[in-house]
């Protein structure tokens, strides 16, 4: 009886989660989906999404990897408070992120519009993506570094390698599967970003209108086109997920 209950729960969950995804491909025919992807505005949105997510993920990895290494290998006062602060964007609603970014970097915000123009600019989209997606990477990278066998690092150090060399030649290569998982999670989150982008960067074709914003705009005017863009995002997200699952030597504990 207990076992049947477990199976029923799993089956229910599976159907509930899979149905909306399947419906996107069933509601419109493949021909219709392909035809609406010929719309230049839809292509602009997909191309912009590809560019801004790539730049955002590059920034996250470049800055996040050393930061995660520091958090994973050092013990200092206030460390757990710092980790919690860095993880906060994970649970903050995107609309709150948008308001926060405006309040900080907006023309009427804390910095009084000092620095480069971000609001309504493509750079602003990247900033929003980095804000919401970086914790996904840093968290995973930190776990990957913390899981490294300390004797390897010790061996590297006693054989005369500098700290930087140990990081670059031992820690990063060994932690690579975990870092890859973090990268994929951050990329997936960035690809789906909607609220913070809309509030902070606005929505304009070719400049700030990413694929999720284009889907929202099309919901009212052209549902088939919204389905088509959604189908592309599902395909992209699914391939990110599958790539991560196929990464060699991925420790199962991490995903």
């Amino acid at each position, binding site marked *: 009886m207990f076992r049947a209950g477990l199976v029923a729960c799993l089956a229910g969950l599976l159907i509930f989660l899979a149905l909306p995804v399947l419906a996107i491909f069933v509601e419109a025919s493949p021909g219709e989906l392909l035809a609406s992807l010929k719309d230049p505005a839809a292509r602009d949105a997909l191309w912009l999404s590809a560019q801004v997510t790539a730049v955002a993920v590059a920034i996250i990895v470049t800055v996040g990897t050393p930061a995660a290494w520091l958090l994973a290998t050092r013990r200092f006062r206030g460390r757990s408070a710092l980790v919690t602060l860095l993880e906060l964007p994970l649970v903050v609603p995107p609309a709150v992120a948008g308001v926060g970014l405006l309040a900080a970097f907006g023309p009427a915000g804390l910095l009084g519009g000092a620095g480069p123009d971000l609001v309504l600019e493509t750079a602003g989209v990247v900033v929003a993506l980095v804000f919401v997606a970086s914790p996904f990477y840093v968290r995973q990278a930190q776990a990957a570094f913390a899981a490294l066998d300390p004797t390897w690092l010790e061996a590297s150090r006693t054989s005369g390698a500098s700290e930087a060399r140990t990081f670059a030649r031992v820690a990063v290569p060994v932690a690579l599967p975990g870092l890859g998982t973090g990268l994929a999670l951050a990329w997936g989150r960035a690809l789906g970003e909607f609220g913070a982008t809309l509030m902070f960067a606005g929505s304009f074709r070719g400049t700030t209108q990413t694929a999720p914003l284009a889907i929202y705009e099309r919901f009212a005017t052209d*549902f088939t086109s919204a389905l088509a863009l959604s189908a592309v995002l599902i395909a992209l997200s699914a391939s990110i997920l599958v790539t991560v699952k196929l990464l060699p030597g991925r420790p199962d504990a991490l995903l």
Partner: protein
Amino acid sequence: MRHALAALAAAGALASCGGGGDEPLKVTAASSLKVALTEYASDGVALAFAGSDQLAAQIRQGARPDVFVAANEKLPADLHAEGLTQPPVRIASNRIVLAVSAGTSAVRSPEDLARDGVRIAVAARGVPAGDYAQRVLDSLPRAGANVRSREPDVSGVVGKLLQRAVDAGFVYATDVRASRGGLREIALPPRLAPDVRYAAVVVRDSPRARAFVDGLRGAPALRAAGFGPP
């Protein structure tokens, strides 16, 4: 486990039949009606606001609010023609205006919209406020090139203006009034100002839904918020 499941089922049954008599009247309405309808609605009315086009699309996708109020007459008329609603009722008029954040001076007249570097926010095409704005922009040479954001509803334009993310935007006269001094209106020449009329439709027919729509026509709450007569 069996008991737990039974309890869960019982709770679900209770929740679904409980409160049958005082189920709230569901009203979906254009974002620009937020202040007025919140004032007008009595207890037992649940309000949801978004761009009129989004709300109409929801109804086409099978959503069934009791009442839908749009910032134009076209969307309700289309829904009625598609057999999804009762006939539309004209409830109020409004004005589309050029607005700037109070205390800014980048834009002082409609002609300034064409100047280099001026940033304009409008609602997206298909959203009533966006379509009205587009008509004004079409008659102002070169201003269209300065549009930097097309927001999903007019609230988005108001937000961008208040945050000074843009220099100017097209919103309703009622939005300027509701901003309590945050926004300043710049007059549009009458020849540029499009006719803005709001219409309501009963989606799920009931005496309460009809009464809600009938009461809206020229309601004091709408006048107080700055709407004109239907």
